[in-house]
């Protein structure tokens, strides 16, 4: 079976000094052309999907709030709109933007991702993200968040709220049955309103009535993917996601985490297909990391394992870790476009030669690529 390979795109790459690398295009980071070239390259490499980072505050070298550094990339385009702008230019690759579920209305997320699914003909996914940073909350002025303490009950509450947001989004996607549009001239009805449904969600944090204003997206349920580093996000993913990105440091760690993920699925009583587990890796395939570390004033730190080497060595690692329970990998290129091209033109042929990666796209839609069936609407009655 083919390995699944996704790529995470962000700015000039995942090294904070990537914009200073040879071949970087720092003056084009906010243009459509820059992103189109990257995603077309990823599609030429037959990758499963690309993800787009986003946040509701400026990037920072600190995890808990803004910093004053001027020597790193600051600023991002809205990830849903960025993904949408790439949809008509591509035909197979999945497009997965990140959105906040802490501050962004789930109704807006649901119609945005559904619209991306229409614009891409069934290649949309979504990465919901919890925002715990106090500075992001101050950009909205509706709530005050204390300084981040990952062990605090407040963070657990944010994950509980995020789970409700994902549930609302998924219900809204199902709120129109697939055959709701009837265009029946005899009765003058455009829709059969019995096939549209109020979602009537009421939780501890908010309620949402529905139905969506957007018909059911082409995939029915676009692919929901999330990133996690410990139990709370694993359980969050087990409740609402299709794919989980994890950050193991080695093969044994990968095995330990996948076991913990399976336990989280049992804890929350997950039904349906089990989570597809992807390991995140930061990858440098050009020997430029040391120079960038010097420029940035210190060695790169990351939540994910940092790989440096050749495409063949990376292929070795991917195949070595895979039996630990991994369905695939999400690679975070250290430098763009260099490390992306090294993935598509170096790693991919290497894996293909070993019989471990597809030689052509076999499905048009994103769910199908993971072997996930198109689900019927939860509201559809047997007729």
């Amino acid at each position, binding site marked *: 079976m083919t390995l699944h390979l996704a790529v995470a795109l962000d700015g000039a790459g995942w090294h904070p000094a990537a914009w200073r690398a040879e071949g970087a295009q720092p003056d084009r980071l906010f243009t459509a052309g820059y992103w189109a070239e990257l995603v077309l390259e990823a599609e030429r490499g037959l990758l499963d999907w690309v993800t787009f980072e986003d946040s509701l505050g400026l990037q920072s070298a600190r995890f808990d709030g803004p910093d004053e550094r001027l020597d790193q990339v600051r600023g*991002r*385009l809205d990830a849903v709109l960025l993904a949408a702008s790439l949809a008509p230019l591509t035909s197979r690759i999945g497009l997965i933007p990140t959105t906040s579920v802490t501050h962004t209305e789930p109704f807006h997320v649901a119609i945005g991702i559904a619209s991306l699914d229409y614009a891409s*003909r069934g290649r949309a996914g979504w990465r919901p993200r919890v925002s715990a940073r106090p500075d992001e909350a101050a950009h909205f002025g509706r709530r005050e968040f204390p300084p981040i303490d990952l062990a605090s009950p407040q963070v657990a509450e944010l994950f509980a709220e995020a789970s409700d947001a994902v549930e609302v989004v998924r219900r809204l996607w199902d709120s129109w049955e697939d055959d709701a549009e009837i265009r029946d001239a005899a009765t003058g009805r455009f829709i059969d309103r019995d096939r549209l449904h109020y979602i009537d969600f009421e939780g501890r944090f908010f309620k949402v*009535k529905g139905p969506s204003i957007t018909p059911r997206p082409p995939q029915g349920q676009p692919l929901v993917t999330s990133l996690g580093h410990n139990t709370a996000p694993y359980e969050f993913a087990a409740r609402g996601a299709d794919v989980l990105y994890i950050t193991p440091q080695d093969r044994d760690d990968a095995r330990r985490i996948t076991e913990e993920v399976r336990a989280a699925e049992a804890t929350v009583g997950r039904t349906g297909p089990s989570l597809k587990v992807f390991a995140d890796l930061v990858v440098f395939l050009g020997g430029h990391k040391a120079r960038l570390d010097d420029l940035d004033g210190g060695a790169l730190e990351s939540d994910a394992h940092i790989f440096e080497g050749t495409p063949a060595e990376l292929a070795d690692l991917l195949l070595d870790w895979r039996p630990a329970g991994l369905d695939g990998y999400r690679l975070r290129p250290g430098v763009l476009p260099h490390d992306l091209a090294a993935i598509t033109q170096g790693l991919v042929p290497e894996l293909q030669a070993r019989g471990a990666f597809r030689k052509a796209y076999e499905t048009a839609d994103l769910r199908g690529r993971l072997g996930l069936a198109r689900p019927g609407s939860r509201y559809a009655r047997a007729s």
Partner: protein
Amino acid sequence: MTKQIHLAAHFPGVNNTTVWSDPRSGSQIDFDSFRHLAQTAERGKFDFFFLAEGLRLREMKGRIHDLDVVGRPESLTVLAALAAVTTRLGLAATVNSTFNEPYEVARRLASLDHLSGGRAAWNVVTSWDAFTGENFRRGGYLAESDRYTRAAEFLQTVRELWDSWAPDAITAKDGQFIRPGGISTFHHDGLHFTITGRFNVPRPPQGHPVIIQAGDSEEGRDFAAASADVIFSRHSKLEEGRAFYKDVKSRLARYGREPGDLKILPAVTYVLGDTQEEAERHAAEIRRAQVSPQTAISFLEGIWGRDLSAYDPDGPLPDIEPDLGKGVSEGRAQFRGDRGAVAAKWRALAAEKNLSIRELVIETAAPQTFVGTAATVAEQINTFVQTDAADGFIFVPHLTPGGLDDLVDKVVPLLQEKGVFRADYTGPTLRDHLGLKTKEL
């Protein structure tokens, strides 16, 4: 001096004027429909493409209204996709200021402006109804009287966010990505929003995306005169158009603005024929298709405020009187106002002309704005603009997605021949098309 006309294309809406029963009617949701209409508008060198918004499905008698086209995408997402398949066309999204927050709207519009190379526009609308609010976690908390103060403060806040990045904030050389002082901290402390921090999208290519506003009340006109670049008006008759135009333009000086700083674009419809008679026949057929028997009863129920499903649409008006209580429709604007007076007027009209229910509803619907041959329609459009009833128009087709094909193929070339409409785009941004200056800091 001869004025240059501005033209915009409105994607067909979710009301009875969009005819879905016609065999040529395509999907209201497939991306190809949006692509077709946008590319048609760009072929016709239009200023911009416009998407409306409604964040809750309309209801009649407590149930979802099922007679009209329904089901729309999120406007900014579709426009971002259209940015990739157009090169010059402006892209205008309606985004509600009640059910959004300034930080998100500012970054999404700035993002669209970057992705389109300076072609974004925002139609600022404000709702106050708790009905729509039920789809949002913060609900419908706005008093109707607060809607303009909130919209004005929302827009002001969004502009503060756009302005918080200097145009040259990104240097990206000599080890410095952002120049010192390139990004300022914003502080907004107002009635509706109290926010502080740093914005995270660079200043948009247009400085500020184009602002569109549709209000017609005194407050709405002042809001537009103070803050908007384009007014989307409802005044599509020559005389009332001139009065509106004069009134709004005269308000601009109070805000230190020139008459050319605000473009007035009424929403209009059109029907073409090879002869005047043929065009009028088509126009009558379209009006009839827009009011199906079921739609006629639904309209009557909206005015009467009660269930009239037992009545024959081809028969006379009901004997029973309107129920002037809370009404039966939710989420549509046309039934606000004095229903008793409308009902009395309708009775008189039906009696005078001996009209059935359906004939009456067709009779009371607004006629198409421009009906005639390509030559007469081009002439009417030009007269409208040259006599200061408008600066141009937002065309609302009745068919998806081909509803502007013949306008672009037959009328636009005549306007170009007259020298009153661009033969090609002269600049890359929507502000260029509209003759508006880039917003400087």
